[in-house]
């Protein structure tokens, strides 16, 4: 039997529990690969009754999860009781959320789970509890580095059947983006993207489209100099390494259907430049995939949505897409998997 996916608790006061329950309820219809939730059986049972759905919950070991999955939602205990009230950010639940991520990574390294899928966390809640990493992605990289003894550069990719995008700079004030953006950063990101699209997604020769930072990709330095002085040299360096990279391209003409057919992933220079096209094309089914890690990690590409937690309104589509992509990327032997257009 194939290994199950390890799904972390996420922010217990948010919609994570809701979408976990809804995804499990659709397991047969969608043919979902087995997964287990790392959390607290009592907490998830309570949420199911709040939502008015009958969900048998069973506490298991990872080894028992796949067999239990058809008949009950398997939960691997994260070791810390979850006390959160739906909709109310509460840092007392942060230790459980963090423990669940650590357990998921440990299970993958121990060969008990095939991949890590994470429910959304609330950064503010974790920060208040003393969490020192900027976000999930960096924390996962740190855990993986500790296991492998190698420094890692995690790369966030947002994937949907319509489009894959990588924001080269992510969650930082826009005023810092032009300062943080270096030729080295773009080259490193592009190199990891090309490697993982080849090794994990089965694309023999990945094609990278690299956006300019500025409008019209800077028009030869007349609209900001970064595209000429930082981005263009990065594209040349990637090409010199034998990577199929083009750019800097004007971001506003990169995303229509004909343009998308000409590349496998778009590298964007800041958050909104990447997130606007993927949210426009795949509002509810985009998946966050971390590249550059020694294991497969996916997550839904939305937040904790405290305002609709426990109301039944949360849409599980993105989590379902994250579970499905994680399963496809870890199938043995690795499938040739092209980014469909």
């Amino acid at each position, binding site marked *: 039997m194939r290994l199950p996916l390890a799904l972390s608790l996420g922010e217990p006061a948010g919609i994570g529990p809701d979408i976990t329950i809804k995804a499990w309820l659709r397991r047969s219809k969608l043919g979902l690969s087995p997964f287990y939730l790392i959390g607290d059986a009592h907490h998830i049972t309570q949420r199911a009754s709040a939502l008015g759905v009958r969900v048998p919950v069973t506490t298991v070991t990872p080894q028992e999860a796949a067999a239990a999955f058809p008949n009950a939602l398997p939960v691997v205990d994260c070791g810390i009781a979850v006390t959160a009230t739906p909709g109310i950010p509460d840092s007392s639940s942060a230790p459980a959320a963090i423990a669940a991520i650590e357990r998921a990574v440990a299970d993958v390294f121990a060969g008990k789970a095939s991949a890590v899928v994470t429910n959304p966390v609330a950064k503010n809640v974790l920060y208040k509890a003393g969490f020192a990493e900027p976000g999930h992605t960096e924390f996962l990289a740190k855990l993986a580095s500790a296991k492998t003894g190698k420094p890692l550069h995690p790369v966030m990719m947002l994937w949907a059947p319509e489009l894959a995008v990588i924001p080269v700079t*992510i*969650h930082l004030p826009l005023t810092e983006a032009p300062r943080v953006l270096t030729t080295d950063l773009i080259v490193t990101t592009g190199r990891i993207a090309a490697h993982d699209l080849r090794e994990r997604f089965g694309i023999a020769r990945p094609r990278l489209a690299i956006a300019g930072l500025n409008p019209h990709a800077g028009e030869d330095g007349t609209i900001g100099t970064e595209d000429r002085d930082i981005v263009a040299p990065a594209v040349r360096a990637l090409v010199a390494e034998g990577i199929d990279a083009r750019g800097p391209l004007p971001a506003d003409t990169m995303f229509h259907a004909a343009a998308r057919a000409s590349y496998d992933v778009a590298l964007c220079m800041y*958050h909104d430049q990447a997130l*606007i096209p993927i949210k426009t094309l795949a509002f509810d089914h985009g998946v966050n995939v971390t590249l550059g890690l020694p294991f497969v990690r996916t997550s839904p590409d939305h937040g904790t949505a405290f305002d609709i937690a426990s109301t039944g309104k949360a849409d599980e589509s993105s989590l379902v897409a994250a579970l499905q992509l994680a399963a496809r990327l870890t199938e043995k032997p690795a499938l040739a998997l092209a980014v469909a257009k």
Partner: protein
Amino acid sequence: MPNALPRVAIATGDPAGIGPEVGLKCALDPAVNAICRPMVVGDPLVLERQAKAAGLKTTFNVIAEARDAKWQGNPGGALNVLSAPMPHADQFEFGKSGANYGLGAIASARRAVAAALSNDVEAVVAAPQNETSIHAAGIAFDGYPSFVAKETGTDIHDVFLMLCFGERRIVHTTLHVGVAEAVRLVTRERVGRAIKAADTALKRLGIASPKIIVGGLNPHAGEGGLFGREEIEIISPAIEDAKATGIAVEGPYGADTMFPKKCDAFVVMLHDQGHITAKLLAPNQTAGLAIGTPILFSSVAHGSAYDIAGKGVASHAAMVEAIKRLVGAQAAAKAA
């Protein structure tokens, strides 16, 4: 009975690109003539070359002044062509850039705007220009909105680009400036002016009580100050200022998740925030209104397309869309 249809000047833009062909196709299109009375503005020689290459008719009524146009001409009669000469038009080549082409493009836009200012036309639609040619001519140019501001004597800081497609409109607080410069330009005053220009323009388009949504500058609109403080210190106060004057406006919201929301116009901070969205949702049917000026002026969101210039295959759909917007706005202004 006098013809009540509005008069529209079509500035044909970059002589070497698809602008003249697109403009002529529009002026000859029965659907366009059903809603307005078009006049083409450009170099007569260039227009003739472009018309012949595209297999279009070349019966022009070439005029030196807009007031000399024959608006009551028979349908199918000679097309009004307001002469806006390009230097050395006899050496014209398709798909070529250079100073003369830049001068030609500016001349057509300038004469069309002047026609609107003198009330010889009610609105102007402009075909794409080529910034390289205009710069080669030694003319500072960073897009039509600021050009129209200069030509109409409007404070440049009061003019903004509003992209229109379907039922959506997106107003850009900053346009053709680098990201680093855009961050500096996003001030409480400028955001306030953009919101006010949007509100005024929407009312001019016939929307009695417009609703406006403002996007953030930073990721997730700053996420409560975690990723930048401009939303807290600049954009939110600007929204409050606008509300205090009776404008229905809300935000700031993360620019990546706000576009499904219902409103009459979005106000974004950056060129790409608006243009990525518009070009994804309406690849060839986007009109760009320069709002905040005394005249009705629209450009089209596509470029000069040198690869297909002079081949007769260019689509004029985007310009028809722009003309429909202008005519709708003019009708609303008249009714008000």
